């Protein structure tokens, strides 16, 4: 996705009741912000300056760990020439003014926050700065051109006058909004590109950062929900006498998606739920099993699917050359954010307030209003910090938000609904399970002449409002991304897709389709390299001529990892490179086996994500991506038996632990291109790099994730 945000304009400014200034983009209406107690130079839509000079940046994104509060504050502060030590931020209310410039709704996803919001935030800062300069120049009776800004103040060097932004705020608010305010040339940047400590670190270290699970309201009840054991289940009969007998339990209500136990606190709610007896209608999902699905997918992979990409004549190529074939499989995956899903709702007769770590404010707000039976204007959604998102808190169905509002409706008191870890793993929304069948033809010189890739799995997008935008001619672009747009120069290519219909709820999961396609493409390419006795680096290099940014990260990672030198004794290296979310990442992992299990010693990554706003954030996201992807490759699978999810907690949905984490070296390609994704692109190449290293170590090719011990022996 590319976004054109460079020509956005500021349409209006108005003095607020508090004497502040409001700056907005194509604003239908000002967000309802309570009048601040102190006169402020204006809130909104993205910046507010208090009379004491404090600057508040309004963040329209979910902060789920990716450092976006800091990055967006940096770009705004850069153009404002603000004093960085006086910068704070707060999360935006739900309002059209805060919509994603590409998707048109308020949301965080697709690794697009920096890409989409850098220019608007720069403009917000630049306009505020220009107005402060005008205010100062008028006050002093001097030409604006003779004034300069730095450190949160306007100065007139010739007369030695100086005024802090706070002092100028009220006057600036009365000025018209200027048009066409120029942005600083990059050469003058002081903040952008400089390693800058995150604004949210201290609160997170001290334990004062507020996640939705930390919100408390007077008289609030806690709700735990007994969900049906299958995804098509409904409660048929509820026997709740024992549950209600637990001291502290207040009520038991059937909300359709499950049976909620309301209590004065988590523990009585838990004890009550443990004592609840529900007879369930299991529905059609009762017969589902991962093993049967695997068989079914395998059969489908043998038949032609809907064509997602076609070039040349792949059948002819496969008939003529030496042919390699393989099947690859990956399971359903849970997002398992560290903070399990939860939501706080205060529903009154004619108002509803919600606290949630939402990645999908517009959608969640509308769904909550519908569930509450209130007009949108009566519903207020507060975005808190997210204890991890990875896509789970961006659900077109707003499942857990709607569930919480329904419970609140029955409760007649403020409610905090908490999903236990088991609920979080079992109650749905997973990265789909995928089966890939690949075949490649090679000529005698080892050149790949044909590539066929058949993909089998569920669509994430089908049935959601995103369908018109993201499904074309029956192809869900997120099912085939990273495969249909294969970067390698191969003359004859066919990528086709079988979209299955399975009653298992699916959702985007950090890196979406790339999370499976990169594993297949980068593993199979390695298979071809081995079969044709080519160096995996040399083969990729040959196939990527002209793809300068991909080649750039590939060469950089190879050089920094010492690819051309032998690995230390007992270790082997594996390589993978993959473009996603408009960025490019190459990974080399150095791996050994310890008591028959992979041990990753070192990860060397090279990334090209355009211009870097905060280098520390880029490094952190890639470090995290390595650990997240290793967890997945080594341990993660959601499996079904008799329609029920088998996993229940971190003992059987295991996470990588500190002692398993490799050292990570991140190398960033210097770039002046538009900033692109960084939260997701580090994930896709890690699993194939691991399996490629293991192949070199063991001679065994891993074609199914997560890795099993028997695949290594």
């Amino acid at each position, binding site marked *: 996705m590319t976004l054109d945000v460079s020509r956005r304009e500021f349409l209006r400014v108005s003095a607020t009741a508090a004497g502040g200034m409001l700056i907005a983009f194509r604003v239908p209406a000002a967000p309802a912000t309570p009048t601040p107690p102190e006169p402020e130079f204006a809130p909104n839509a993205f910046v507010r300056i208090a009379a004491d000079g404090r600057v508040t940046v309004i963040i329209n994104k979910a902060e*789920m*760990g*990716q*450092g976006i509060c800091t990055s967006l504050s940096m770009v705004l502060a850069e153009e404002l020439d603000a004093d960085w030590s006086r910068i704070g931020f707060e999360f935006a209310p739900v309002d059209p003014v805060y919509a994603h410039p590409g998707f048109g709704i308020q949301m965080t996803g697709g690794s697009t926050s920096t890409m989409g919001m850098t220019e608007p935030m720069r403009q917000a800062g630049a306009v505020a700065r220009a107005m402060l300069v005008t205010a100062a120049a008028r006050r002093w009776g001097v030409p604006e051109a003779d004034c300069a800004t730095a450190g949160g103040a306007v100065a007139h060097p010739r007369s030695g006058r100086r005024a802090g932004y706070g002092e100028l705020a009220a006057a600036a608010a009365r000025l018209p909004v200027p048009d066409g305010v120029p942005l600083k040339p990059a050469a003058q940047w002081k903040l952008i590109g400089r390693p800058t*400590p*995150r604004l*949210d*670190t*201290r*609160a*997170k*270290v*001290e*334990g*004062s950062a*507020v*996640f939705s*699970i*930390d919100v*408390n309201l007077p008289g609030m009840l806690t709700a735990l929900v007994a969900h049906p054991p299958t995804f098509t289940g409904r409660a048929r009969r509820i026997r709740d006498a024992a549950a209600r007998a637990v*001291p*502290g339990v207040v009520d038991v209500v059937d909300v359709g998606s499950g049976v909620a136990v309301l209590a004065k*606190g*988590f*523990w*009585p709610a838990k004890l009550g739920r443990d004592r609840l007896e529900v007879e369930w209608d299991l529905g059609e999902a009762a017969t589902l099993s991962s093993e049967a699905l695997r068989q079914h997918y395998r059969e489908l992979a043998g038949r032609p699917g809907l064509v997602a990409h076609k070039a040349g004549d792949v059948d002819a190529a496969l008939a003529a050359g030496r042919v390699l074939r393989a099947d690859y499989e990956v399971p359903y995956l849970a997002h*398992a*954010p*560290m*903070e*399990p899903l939860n939501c706080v709702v205060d529903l009154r007769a004619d108002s509803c307030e919600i606290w949630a770590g939402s990645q999908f404010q517009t959608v969640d707000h509308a769904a909550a209003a519908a569930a509450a039976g209130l007009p949108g204007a009566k519903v207020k959604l507060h975005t808190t*910090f*997210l*204890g*991890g*998102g*990875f896509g789970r808190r961006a659900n077109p169905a707003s499942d857990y938000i709607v569930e919480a509002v329904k419970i609140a409706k029955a409760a007649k008191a403020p409610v905090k609904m*908490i999903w*236990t*870890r088991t609920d979080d793993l079992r109650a749905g929304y997973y990265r789909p399970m995928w089966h890939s069948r690949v075949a490649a033809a090679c000529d005698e010189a080892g050149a790949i002449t044909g590539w066929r890739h058949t993909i089998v799995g569920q669509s994430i997008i089908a049935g959601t409002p995103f369908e018109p935008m993201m499904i074309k001619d029956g192809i869900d672009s997120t099912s085939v991304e990273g495969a249909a747009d294969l970067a390698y120069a191969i003359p004859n290519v066919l990528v086709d897709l079988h979209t299955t219909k399975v009653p298992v709820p699916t959702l985007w999961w950090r890196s979406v389709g790339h999370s499976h396609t990169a594993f297949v493409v980068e593993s199979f390419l390695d298979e071809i390299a081995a079969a044709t006795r080519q160096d995996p680096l040399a083969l990729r290099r040959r196939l990527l001529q002209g793809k300068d940014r991909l080649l750039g990260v590939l060469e950089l990672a190879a050089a920094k990892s010492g690819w051309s030198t032998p690995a230390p004794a007992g270790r082997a290296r594996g390589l993978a490179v993959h473009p996603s979310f408009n960025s490019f990442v190459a990974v080399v992992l150095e791996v050994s086996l310890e008591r028959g299990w992979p041990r990753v010693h070192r990860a060397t990554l090279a990334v090209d994500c355009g211009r870097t706003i905060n280098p*520390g954030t880029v490094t*952190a*996201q890639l*470090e*995290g*991506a390595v*650990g*997240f992807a*290793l*967890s997945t490759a080594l341990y993660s699978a959601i499996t079904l038996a008799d329609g029920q999810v088998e996993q229940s*907690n*971190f*003992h059987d949905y295991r*996470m*990588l*632990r*500190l*002692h398993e*984490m490799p*050292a990570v070296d991140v190398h960033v390609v210097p770039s002046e291109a538009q900033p692109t994704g960084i939260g997701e692109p580090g994930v896709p190449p890690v699993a194939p790099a691991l399996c490629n290293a293991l192949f070199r170590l063991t001679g065994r090719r891993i074609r199914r994730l997560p890795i099993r011990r028997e695949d290594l022996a």
Partner: protein
Amino acid sequence: MITLEVNGRSVVVDVDPGTPLLWVLRENLQLMGTKYGCGAAQCGSCTVHVDGNAVRSCVLPVSAAAGKKVTTIEGLTEPSGAALKQAWIELDVPQCGYCQTGQIMSAAILLRQKRQPSDADIDACMGGNVCRCATYVRIRGAIHRAAALARGGAR
């Protein structure tokens, strides 16, 4: 009625004695820095100190903490605790941040036992604390840094 000493303050709570300490801290005492992640001693998000030992408060009945000294992240004011917080800030460890208070509480026990922990010490002590964002590289770095700070503030 159960009496405990939390962050140096004596408190009396009226709860079912089987209630895990975690929920007493969060719901009765409004100490929200201690987090719920799994409820089964599988993740370490709820780590607090009870009489100087790291415990998973999600599985410790409050009755077992009766009369004992409980320290949460809010009360971690000992010098090595301050060093840990400073090191965590210097290295910008947190991503989503949800696991971090538990990480710091576990690390505080390590620093109490070892002035200069090795990588192996860190591995052994921190294995029970999951970070879904996988901030482990920086957690390790911050523990080393905190140990240096606590030993004499080497910069």
